[in-house]
């Protein structure tokens, strides 16, 4: 099996989908001739042509709005928003329409639509390019939200998203776009939406993470392993629906949970996960569920972004706290 980076794995998924189903169209700013600003769509325009891989005007609401119309009209659009921080101009189309079409029409007009967006910090990008606002979409009923952290999951989840009859926000952690390679099978395979991945078995504390925070959680687990503390690391992968059972099972075993996310703390998914654990594993908790997150500040310009993003040091400190509680 070929070894692929996440960028390559996503490119491969798009190519497999375009090949399999003539209804699939890839659309967005610079996704065509240029192959995407991260080269995620590299080569697709040359291979599938202007009607399948479409450079659109610079118009996020237009992209998502017409993608909705395309889906209604029988296509399977995979729309790219160049950076998650630029999805807000399309917010209306996403929350008032994409998320509500099925309910509004009671299934008569479902909305098979995938919105891909690179997200998160860590690559020293300009302002607004490092947002990580997955919580906004998780709080919007009618949307599914996924965020893979590995090449394998990226391809499998993207194909599952394209296959899904409902709208999926597909978040791609830029920070790990190219950091590691993994064996990625050829052809079509799916990683089911709604299922977490147990990255590492452990007994003492559960670390919940997704996207670019997964490697941070893993490194923290490595660090603590040397001190005889065993961390169970769970990669949520799917942010809505959340694999509650996997989380609850793990926390019932360890009695302790640390949640790691890049987004600002207040109103982030950490709160939701804390509530889930509190509701379903209250009596098993040996320490408060603890959050390691971005701070409640606009993501700082990149000279300070390392201070903003959770790192091994901060996550380790949280593990120490819950262990010593």
């Amino acid at each position, binding site marked *: 099996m070929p070894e692929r980076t996440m960028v390559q794995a996503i490119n491969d998924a798009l190519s497999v989908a375009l090949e399999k189903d003539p209804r699939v169209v890839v659309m967005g700013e610079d996704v065509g001739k240029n192959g995407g600003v991260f080269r995620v769509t590299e080569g697709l325009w040359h291979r599938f042509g202007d009607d399948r891989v479409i450079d659109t005007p610079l118009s996020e609401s237009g992209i998502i*709005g017409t993608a909705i*119309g395309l889906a209604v*009209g029988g*296509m399977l659009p995979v729309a790219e928003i160049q950076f998650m921080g630029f999805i807000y101009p399309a917010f209306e189309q996403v929350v008032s*329409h994409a998320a509500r079409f099925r309910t*509004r*029409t009671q299934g008569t007009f479902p909305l098979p639509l995938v919105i891909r967006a690179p997200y998160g910090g860590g690559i020293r990008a300009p302002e607004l390019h490092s947002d990580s606002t997955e919580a906004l979409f998780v709080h919007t009923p009618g949307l599914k939200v996924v965020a893979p952290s590995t090449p394998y999951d990226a391809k499998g989840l993207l194909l599952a998203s394209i296959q899904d009859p409902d709208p999926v926000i597909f978040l791609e952690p830029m920070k790990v776009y190219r950091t590691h390679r993994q064996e990625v099978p050829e052809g079509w395979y799916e990683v089911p939406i*709604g299922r977490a991945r147990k990255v590492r078995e452990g007994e003492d504390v559960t670390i919940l993470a997704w996207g670019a925070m997964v490697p941070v959680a893993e490194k923290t687990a490595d660090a603590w392993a040397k001190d005889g503390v065993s961390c169970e690391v769970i990669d949520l992968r799917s942010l809505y629906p959340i694999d509650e*059972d996997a989380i609850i099972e793990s926390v019932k075993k360890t009695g302790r949970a640390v949640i790691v996310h890049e987004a600002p703390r207040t109103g982030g998914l950490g709160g939701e996960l804390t509530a889930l654990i509190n509701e379903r594993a209250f009596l098993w908790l040996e320490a408060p569920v603890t959050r390691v997150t971005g701070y409640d500040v606009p993501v700082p310009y990149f000279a300070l972004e390392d201070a903003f993003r959770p790192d091994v040091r901060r996550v380790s400190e949280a593990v120490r706290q819950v262990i010593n509680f």
Partner: protein
Amino acid sequence: MLQQVEEKRIGLSYVRPDGTLTDEGRAVWRRIDDEKKMLFYRWMTMARLFDRRSIILQRQGRIGTFAPLEGQEAAQVGSAMALSKEDWIFPTYREHGVQMVLGMPLNLILLYWMGRVEGWRPPELLRLLPPSVPIATQLPHAAGAAWASKLRGERSVAVAYFGDGATSEGDFHEACNFAGVFRLPVIFFCQNNGYAISVPFSRQSATPTVAEKAAAYAFPGIRVDGNDVLAVYEAMVRAIERARNGEGPTLIEAVTYRHGAHTTADDPARYRSEEEAREWVQRRDPLKRYRALLRSEGLLTEAEEREWEEECRRRIDRAVKEAEAEKAAPPTHMFDHVFATPVASLQRQRREWEGDGRA
């Protein structure tokens, strides 16, 4: 104000306010068969009577807040009559005239206004979307559906209905821009009734017309007398032809007026003069005008009129009964159509709802 601007810039006008035909109008009139001529009348009448009845139903507390269309019948019926079953329609909340012409049963329209989404399910194969409540947001959808049609090599066109207020939204611009760039078979059909709730068009736009805005997207914009059903129909036929021939989008501005309030919660006396309203209601009424034409052409007698109005009332009565008899969906219905396959947490919430001792 509005009327003067209008008369100066109207592109198409066939039936004069007094119900006589212009020369051009005469030529168009000859090309249209009698059945269609009667259908214009019938649907406009039905739309008006349905509209009036709905206002009463709202006052009686039998439906919720309602957005009346009276005055805009020609714009809605004339445009909808030009469409085929294969075409995609994206209406707003004020388009019950359009809806009924296209085959939406009256009882379903009423159910919608009763706040009952379960009644809203367009009849099989009807490419008619539910009313778009957020202004202008349906325009990109129409562009997208037209795009799908083009990519799939189909004949269908897409139509977005919207008001003058919608032209101020970014989505109007983005949709028109996509339509222009990709030459999509889409028609942007604006009913310019002069107001967005209380805000007059002069506060909405610095251009005196909507039609001229099409220039920014390099496709034609045409301004028609929206109270002239024939002119509206003809404008729409031409736009559809253009679209089907691959010549791209058209923006149609149908200049019209709502006789009544924005919705049953609105009081137009706060922002419109009586004279203005009187002028439109008395002199420019689309239905009166068209009825006069039919009469003078010998296609309609007073008896036939009365008969058809009676028939409308019967149908509306029946629709009201049907709508009110429609079994209420159980509250758990709200969980049923969020996703194709229910997700676990929602199923848990559903059970929680049922467990609250209510199921």
